[in-house]
């Protein structure tokens, strides 16, 4: 028969600590990202970020050396690929320019106000998550520079993620590849909408419902969600697919180079939580897009930049989008 005295001291302490862990997990999950857990996280990140910054500076020569060694064999291929990409982008810029002029002419003809620009802040990636399962980046800009919760983060390729925690000088960005991330997107070529899901590593899952459409490899997926400004390039379809009984399922690669990001831009753009009756837990309106060029949609907040370091940007992948002027 089991008796308490038959449990040795380390086992007793272990059981006690496991119970404490389970209580902590329960309390933190019930707090839903707020409360004491959130405060402690912010405090720990604020205290630890100077150490991370110091390590970034001290460790840079070592990291550069190791990185150079591992990149040595791929440099030539990458150089050729980049040259091809530059040529392709130059052609794209010329095509975009003519479209932009035509949009302006049409806007003038229709008496539509020129669209608002979205201000951005450039930031450097300080650190990554503590494990392979953390799809996080710590950036060196925080609320002191105007960064706020839920702001979209981009790099030259496309959408990187969104801000999930902010302290004075740093912020944490959850990557779009996180398995808990679900993004409403639109196929740029056809205008059909669907859902993009993070799968940790590798390609993301792309799903379309109630459709008889098809997607082809190379189709660009842009954001079409209230959580992000419409038109940000998010991913590129990897495998062509056709709908089967109204449902289409395929994979797509993130447009941004998620695994190797050094610098990002935070879009100073937020959207108030728009709660629909009947939706639980403060679900956001699943509406698409502040496409109204006359101004921000209802529930959308314009954020005033608080520092002089902000710049305006054209969202990656968006060429003819109202709401964002190149």
């Amino acid at each position: 028969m089991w008796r308490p005295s038959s449990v040795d001291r380390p086992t007793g302490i272990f059981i006690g600590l496991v119970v404490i862990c389970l209580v902590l997990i329960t309390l933190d999950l019930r707090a839903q990202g707020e409360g004491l857990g959130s405060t402690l996280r912010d405090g720990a990140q604020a205290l630890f970020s100077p150490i991370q910054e110091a390590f970034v500076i001290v460790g840079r020569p070592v990291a550069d050396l190791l990185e150079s060694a591992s990149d040595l064999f791929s440099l030539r291929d990458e150089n050729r690929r980049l040259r091809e990409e530059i040529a392709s982008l130059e052609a794209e810029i010329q095509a975009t320019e003519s479209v932009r002029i035509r949009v302006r002419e049409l806007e003038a003809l229709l008496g539509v106000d020129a669209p608002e620009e979205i201000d951005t802040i450039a930031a450097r990636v300080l650190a990554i998550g503590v494990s392979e399962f953390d799809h996080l980046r710590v950036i060196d800009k925080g609320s002191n520079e105007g960064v706020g919760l839920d702001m979209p983060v981009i790099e030259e390729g496309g959408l990187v993620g969104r801000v999930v925690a902010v302290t004075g000088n740093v912020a944490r960005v959850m990557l779009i590849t996180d398995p808990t991330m679900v993004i409403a997107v639109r196929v740029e070529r056809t205008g059909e909408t669907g859902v993009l899901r993070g799968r940790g590593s590798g390609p993301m899952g792309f799903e379309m419902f109630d459709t008889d459409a098809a997607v082809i490899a190379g189709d660009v997926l842009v954001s079409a969600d209230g959580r992000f400004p419409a038109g940000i390039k998010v991913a590129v379809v990897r495998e062509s697919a056709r709908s089967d009984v109204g449902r289409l399922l395929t994979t797509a690669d993130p447009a941004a180079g998620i695994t190797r990001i050094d610098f990002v831009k935070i879009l100073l753009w937020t959207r108030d939580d728009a709660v629909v009756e009947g939706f639980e837990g403060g679900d956001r309106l699943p509406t698409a897009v502040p496409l109204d060029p006359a101004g921000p949609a209802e529930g959308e907040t314009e954020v005033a930049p608080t520092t002089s370091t902000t710049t305006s940007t054209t969202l990656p992948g968006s060429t003819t989008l109202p709401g964002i002027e190149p």
Partner: protein
Amino acid sequence: MKIRPTAVTVAILILAVAVQTTLFARFRPFDAAPALVMLVVLAFARHLPSEYALLMGFGAGLFQDLLAETPLGLWALVLTAVAFVVVRFRDRLEDEVGYLGPFVLGITIGGLTLFAVLGTIFGEKTLADAGIIRKIALPAVYNVLLAPLVLRAVPMALGMSRYRDSAFRL
């Protein structure tokens, strides 16, 4: 417990977390990095008194939790379990040092698998990760490669004079 070992333990754990989140952000062969904090917990748990080893695992895990977006206590549970297993097996490892490499491999795989399972139970969808096998296997292999360095450095930092000849032997 004396102040010096405590200070050394805390300092090395902070160092491990800093290296894990900064240096290994850029140096990631095959897009993976070692589970350095887990390895350091393993290394300390071999030498600290049982109670302190468990508390050290718990503290290190809690610190990881504070820097992650996982529920507070998840890493604490995993690293406490790692410390507990090490405490249970360390005497046997002293006798059979040849088992130390496989032990590091096994404990890293076990710890990361436990994290993935618990993470999924608590809504983190970790098992849905497309690269789950790679994310468990590669850090375990890297930990085995780093083990001779870390497992030697920790007792030296603690001021212990039990260094012996084998790469894994202390």
